[in-house]
């Protein structure tokens, strides 16, 4: 018995290594579809082996699950495999609570890489602007929180459930509140559309296949860290270009609805477009996002004449909080 567990564990390790190497080499999307089938087979095989010594009980009996599953099980035919692999975290359809706990883990890791700027007035100001913008979004009821982190890079990050940070370097580039509103609006758009969450779910499919999430990993936190990889590497991953363009469109829409000058985000993209791509401070931003020129052009295509009659938007540069250093 003990021996067989060991073997299956080794196998797990081997499969995980395999997935890791595949992931490293290939883009996520293509990898997801190429190896998914193969992984499923491997898991099935493994499960069958595990069951072998026992009597194979028919799946008609109600599945005894330690954690009460919120979704009613519709098909009992695939129950054995599904139940074995099913984690406590509902990856298929995470609740808002689960989404927030996932975002907390990611944001906490990100803050491990760069802590908050120790300036309470700054953080309060950014939260005020962010909260007002978020109220114009389609998910106003999330517990939105915002922070400026101590890094001279130009970047901003969103994590599921409403955790949003931007770097001090980027904040320094801003001249008024409308521009800040545009930047925060872009990140809020990512959260509203669950762009990062969907990326993680896709990733999780792979992990499930690799047998990462057998009951041995069923403790919530461990599970989450397994899903997001090491540290905050998920924050260094690119979303689809289309997701970035969508977040730009939403950022402009929210800021406009909030009463801000409608071209705040466009101003920031203009500024970022001036930075040489050889400048290290934009390395990660330019790697994970389309070039600002492309984003401006795409935004222009979507906007057309829709902003022609938007007037009296505010920039509020007078109350824009200036960094102390």
């Amino acid at each position, binding site marked *: 018995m003990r021996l067989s567990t060991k073997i299956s564990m080794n196998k797990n390790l081997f499969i995980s290594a395999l997935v890791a190497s595949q992931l490293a080499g290939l883009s996520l999307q293509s990898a997801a579809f190429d190896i998914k089938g193969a992984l499923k087979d491997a898991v099935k095989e493994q499960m069958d082996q595990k069951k072998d010594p026992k009597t194979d009980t028919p799946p008609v009996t109600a599945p005894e699950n330690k954690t009460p599953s919120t979704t009613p099980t519709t098909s009992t035919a695939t129950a054995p495999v599904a139940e074995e692999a099913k984690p406590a975290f509902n990856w298929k359809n995470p609740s808002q609570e689960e989404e927030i706990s996932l975002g*907390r883990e990611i*944001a906490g*890791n*990100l*803050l*491990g*890489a760069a802590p*908050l700027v120790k300036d309470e007035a700054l*953080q309060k100001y950014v939260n*005020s602007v962010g*909260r007002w913008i978020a*109220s114009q979004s389609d998910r106003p009821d999330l*517990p*939105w*929180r915002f*922070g400026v982190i101590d*890094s*001279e890079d130009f*970047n901003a990050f969103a994590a599921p459930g409403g955790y949003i940070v931007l770097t001090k370097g980027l904040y320094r*580039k801003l001249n008024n509140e409308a521009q800040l509103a545009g930047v925060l609006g872009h990140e809020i758009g990512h959260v509203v559309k669950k762009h990062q969450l969907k990326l993680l779910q896709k990733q999780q499919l792979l992990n499930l296949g690799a047998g990462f999430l057998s009951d041995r990993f069923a403790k919530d936190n461990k599970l989450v860290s397994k899903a997001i990889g090491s*540290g905050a*590497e998920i924050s*260094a991953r*690119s979303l689809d270009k*289309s997701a970035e363009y*969508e977040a730009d469109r*939403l950022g402009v*829409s929210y800021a*406009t*609805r909030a*009463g801000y000058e*409608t071209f705040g985000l*466009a101003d920031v993209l*203009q*500024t970022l*477009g*001036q930075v040489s*791509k*050889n400048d*290290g*401070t934009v*390395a*990660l931003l*330019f*790697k994970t996002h389309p*070039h600002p*020129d492309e984003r*401006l*052009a*795409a*935004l*222009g295509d*979507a*906007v*057309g*004449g*829709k*902003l022609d009659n*938007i007037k009296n938007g*505010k920039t509020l540069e007078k109350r824009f909080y200036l960094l102390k250093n």
Partner: protein
Amino acid sequence: MKKLKYILIAASFLPMLYAGLSIAAETGSALKKDSIRAEPFADARVTGNFNRGDKVEILKKQGAWLQVKTKKNTGWVRLLSIKRGSSSAANQTAGILAAASGRAGTGQVVSTTGIRGLGEEELKAAKFNETEIKTLEGYTLSAEQGRQFAAAGNLKTIAFSNLKAPKGGSK
């Protein structure tokens, strides 16, 4: 160590540099093919057009429009069609190409990240910080607090639908 100091100094000058740029007579280049109009209105008479990459001189901004001067004429164009600033054509092409191939900023560039870099390596190595996340969560405001802040700035909501992706996608 000395190098780090130089990077620091250079970084601190960056904002000044940009402030300087915006004061100088502004130039720009076209991000896409578009029409030039006699007035800043969608239904104003078309007086000319330009192609992607064409150089323009920016004279004035009014609402969603920029008044620009090209080699041939002067007129109004939607501001999202213009990249502001005077980056050289070669530089710009390189930027667009890099963006198109999705390879901008990769390779040796990442390693030259200056002080407190926030690149892939740093993110991967990051450890969860409970104190910091608690501090961040401590700043969470209610929707009502957001409303009060908006009212203090005399911000008024307006009706505006979420922008949709253009038909046929971008590009």
